[in-house]
């Protein structure tokens, strides 16, 4: 509900106070709890947030203090963000699945005195790091279960603190309001710690203006209104959630829904039926994989219907979505498919009402991308990063490609440097890296251009294409380009392959580590009578090796058709004995490969790939889910893959 009076709002708390005048009774947030969708109207959300602010203020929380927030997406935690902002403080959400050391870094670096933790699990982590972070005064929790014996001097219930705040407001009703009035657009709205593919996390400082202007622009761009339903299920510490759920939601006035728990997201998604939806490619990928797997058990008729109409969709669906002309008969055929297959399928997946869906963060497989679009789901790509308040480029309706990531949205400029690196400038450009002027200076120029670190180019349509991390694009010994991520993504489009790491920089040829997808390969194994007792055993099975080899050889064939990349064909590979895991530091929390760490950990394996050995012994330290440390050992087989001859233009 962005009317003229709200455009004057310069901070989120100011915006909320204005919206309260006419939107007070609109549902602002919902949370699935106790079996139903408990609803917070805007008035309730603000009342709780302001009461909490008053309580915090009474505890001594002052302007520019930071408030670390750890937990799943919960309305009270979003309320805590508003509370901190209301006092001119800075919310610092941390990833809820981080281990204590990771939280310790954030808390210590942000100099936080207060932590809001969702439940006992998070409180325990917060207590664990108190020794190292003596600044921490209070830990505020939302869910009291199991916490009754904790020291009430340190650990307090959010409800108690709100009650305390309400008392404060009785005697001093302007306590919070006066702080809200002092807010300025350049105030820090949030600090988001980026996991970073290398080194320590950096705290990206975003101002209220960054978030507000970006939210307004994007809402206008995709015609986001107060009637959207959005499911907030991605980590609160991730800029996407902060932008999509928090900033855009508060600006547009739509309701944000929090799932019951991480394990019920699929069910909750189905119940809510979001109209505006974001998911990283891996989620779309795993949903598609599960669709395929579930359909394999279907009866003959259903399978025939599914396959038939999916073929119809492939033919006409995308054209319909892009508004291109389609023959009447095809339209009718597609309509029948909508009734029999697409409609029910979207319904069971929870996508029936999706009006705009985005994916970003990684390249998405063209097959996957088109599958969703052909069903009539308006899935688009965008390219962004935390430092830009997400948006660098995005795809407008009707011009959507799987291989490119669109054009800059209003207000954003994008340029390609001579070395191929993408740089941008716009209203969302971050203020600085918190307490890290060197890094800030490295990334952001004097005139506000930001280096993305990604290599890319604009194609003939004027759409940006991203190849790889600029620094990861290497050269092979024959001087041809080696873009590891590009290769890896191509392989990851096969459902059987979950992760890939390729090597080829300053080498004669390219090799790869493969992680198989346990669901997909496990299912395949079941159908093919391959028995196995563990992931490790399945990964080492000769038939699985053959399966993966087939995938690689297919990729090699397609690489052979591109003169720039034909020498990047993968000659040797091995299947890793364990899944690459963020807990072991091999992936970032957003599941990006940490190449440096992999190079360190598996140096011997890499050597083996290049020196022609057929076996290589490996022993790795791993962290189990319960926090114990252990070792996994294996003797891995190394396998050769056939390489296709380079196609000359004449032949093609």
């Amino acid at each position: 509900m962005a009317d003229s009076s709200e455009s004057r709002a310069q901070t989120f708390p100011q915006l909320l106070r204005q919206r309260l005048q006419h939107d007070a009774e609109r549902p602002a947030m919902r949370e699935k709890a106790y079996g139903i969708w408990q609803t917070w109207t805007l008035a309730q959300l603000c009342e709780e947030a302001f009461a909490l602010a008053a309580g915090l203020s009474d505890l001594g929380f002052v302007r520019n203090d930071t408030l670390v927030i750890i937990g799943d997406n919960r309305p009270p935690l979003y309320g805590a963000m508003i509370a901190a902002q209301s006092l001119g403080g800075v919310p610092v959400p941390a990833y809820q699945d981080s281990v204590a050391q990771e939280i310790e870094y954030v808390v210590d670096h942000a100099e936080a005195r207060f932590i809001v933790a969702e439940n006992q699990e998070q409180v325990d982590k917060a207590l664990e790091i108190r020794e190292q972070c003596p600044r921490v005064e209070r830990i505020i929790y939302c869910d009291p279960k199991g916490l009754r014996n904790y020291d009430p001097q340190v650990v307090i219930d959010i409800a108690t603190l709100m009650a305390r705040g309400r008392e404060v407001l009785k005697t001093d009703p302007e306590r919070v309001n006066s702080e809200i009035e002092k807010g300025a657009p350049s105030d820090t709205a949030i600090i988001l710690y980026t996991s970073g593919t290398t080194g320590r996390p950096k705290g990206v400082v975003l101002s209220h203006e960054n978030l507000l202007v970006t939210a307004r622009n994007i809402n206008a761009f995709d015609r986001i209104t107060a009637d959207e339903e959005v499911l907030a299920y991605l980590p609160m510490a991730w800029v996407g959630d902060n932008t999509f759920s928090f900033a855009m939601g508060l600006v547009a006035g739509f309701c944000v829904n929090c799932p019951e728990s991480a394990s019920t997201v699929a069910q909750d998604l189905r119940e809510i039926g979001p109209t505006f939806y974001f998911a990283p490619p891996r989620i779309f990928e795993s949903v598609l994989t599960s669709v395929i797997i579930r359909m394999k058990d279907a009866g003959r008729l259903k399978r025939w219907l599914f396959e038939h109409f999916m073929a119809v969709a492939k033919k006409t669906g995308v054209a319909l979505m892009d508004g291109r002309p389609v023959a009447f008969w095809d339209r009718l055929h597609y309509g029948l498919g909508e009734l029999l297959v697409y409609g029910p399928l979207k319904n069971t997946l929870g996508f029936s009402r999706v009006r705009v869906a985005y994916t970003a963060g990684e390249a998405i497989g063209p097959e996957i991308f088109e599958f969703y679009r052909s069903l009539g789901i308006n899935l688009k790509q965008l390219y962004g990063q935390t430092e830009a308040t997400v948006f660098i480029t995005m795809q407008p309706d009707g011009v959507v490609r799987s291989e490119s990531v669109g054009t800059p949205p209003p207000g954003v400029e994008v340029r390609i440097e001579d070395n191929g690196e993408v740089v941008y400038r716009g209203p969302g450009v971050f203020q600085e890296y918190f307490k890290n002027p060197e890094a800030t200076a490295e990334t952001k120029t004097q005139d506000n251009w930001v280096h993305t670190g990604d290599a890319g180019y604009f194609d003939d349509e004027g759409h940006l294409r991203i190849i790889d991390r600029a620094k990861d694009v290497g050269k092979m010994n024959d001087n041809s380009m080696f873009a590891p991520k590009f290769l890896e993504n191509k392989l990851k489009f096969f459902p059987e392959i979950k992760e890939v790491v390729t090597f080829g920089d300053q080498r004669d040829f390219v090799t790869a580590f493969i992680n198989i997808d346990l669901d997909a390969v496990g299912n395949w194994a079941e159908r093919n009578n391959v028995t196995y007792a563990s992931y490790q055993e399945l990964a080492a099975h000769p038939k699985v090796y053959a399966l993966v080899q087939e995938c690689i050889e297919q990729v090699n064939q397609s690489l052979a058709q591109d003169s720039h990349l034909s020498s990047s064909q993968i000659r040797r590979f091995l299947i890793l004995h364990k899944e690459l895991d963020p807990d072991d530091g091999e992936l970032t929390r957003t599941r990006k490969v940490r190449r440096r760490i992999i190079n360190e950990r598996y140096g011997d394996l890499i050597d083996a790939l290049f020196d022609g050995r057929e076996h290589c012994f490996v022993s790795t330290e791993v962290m189990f889910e319960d926090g114990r440390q252990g070792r996994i050992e294996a003797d891995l087989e190394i396998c050769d893959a056939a390489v296709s001859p380079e196609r000359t233009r004449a032949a093609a």
Partner: protein
Amino acid sequence: MLYRETGQFKTSYKKDMAIFPIRQDRWALIATLIFVVVGVPLLATEHVIAGYLIPLLIWAIAAIGLNILTGYTGQLSLGHGAFMAVGAYSAYNLAARVPEIPIILVFLLAGLIAAIFGVLVGSPSLRIKGFYLAVATLAAQFFVEWVFATFPWFVGGAASMVIDTPKMTIFGYQITTTLDNYYLVLGFVVVGTLYAKNLVRSEIGRAWMAIRDMDVAAEVIGIRPLYTKLSAFAVSSFYGGVAGALYAFCYVKSVDFTAFDLFVSLKVLFMIIIGGMGSILGCFLGAAFIVVLPIILNEIAHLFAGQIPSAMLSNIEHMIFGGLIIFFLIVEPHGLARLWMTAKEKLRLWPFPH
């Protein structure tokens, strides 16, 4: 396949505990109601309404009654015909002897009298269980048949032991046409079904099912076995009584003890078994099945009329009927309602198999 549940989320327990939480089911119900209220009179002939639909609806009420006792509370009864008979005779005597009582109230009072009788029959149920109780209800069946066959007082002294029911008026409006009767029965069906559905999803319904599923555990958590069983007997025979009264007044238009014999009890039992024990919907499906099956068999028999003697046709009907029952029990012992539930699950999951 037809379900589009995405976006149908519940923000209150009231909505979550609704009888039809899924929007498409509500639409289907509304469509059905419109059809039976408006569509049926337009489309169906008088013969169909009077001969098939009215009895179907009445049997459905009777089946709801028996289902509450047998399907929900687990007390096998072979005497539902007796409760219907008590209802029919009570209604006749109330209407004939005290014409001042409004006819709707007559039906309800008839139900109430049947309920009292039901409580009497059920009173040994605390001590006797299973087939013993079933035989006790059978005793009630024979006793009631005997009473109404023996004492002419119950039919106003008619020596034939059969008498026509008096005319019915509601607020001065005389119930004469088939359609009048149809709407009257339909009204009872709608209210009665809703009432029964509410009962089975409330505390009493859970107590009934608890007794059925495990009576010792039910008692241990505080459910009173006698009260619970007797309340099931009361509610069950109330429905039976109302159904019996409607049967006499709106369908056959006479009171006749042979209309409520043991085979009527068995017929209602068939309805709930074939329809589905412990399912309100099943009562309608079962009633429809039992009403429609003879019609279909009859139609088929007509094709052979002339070639096969009619006595033989009736015997073949018997065999097919009995055979179908056995076949049904083997194929789907949980009844049509379970088939419907399975189909619905499939439609909700479509295109996925599970």
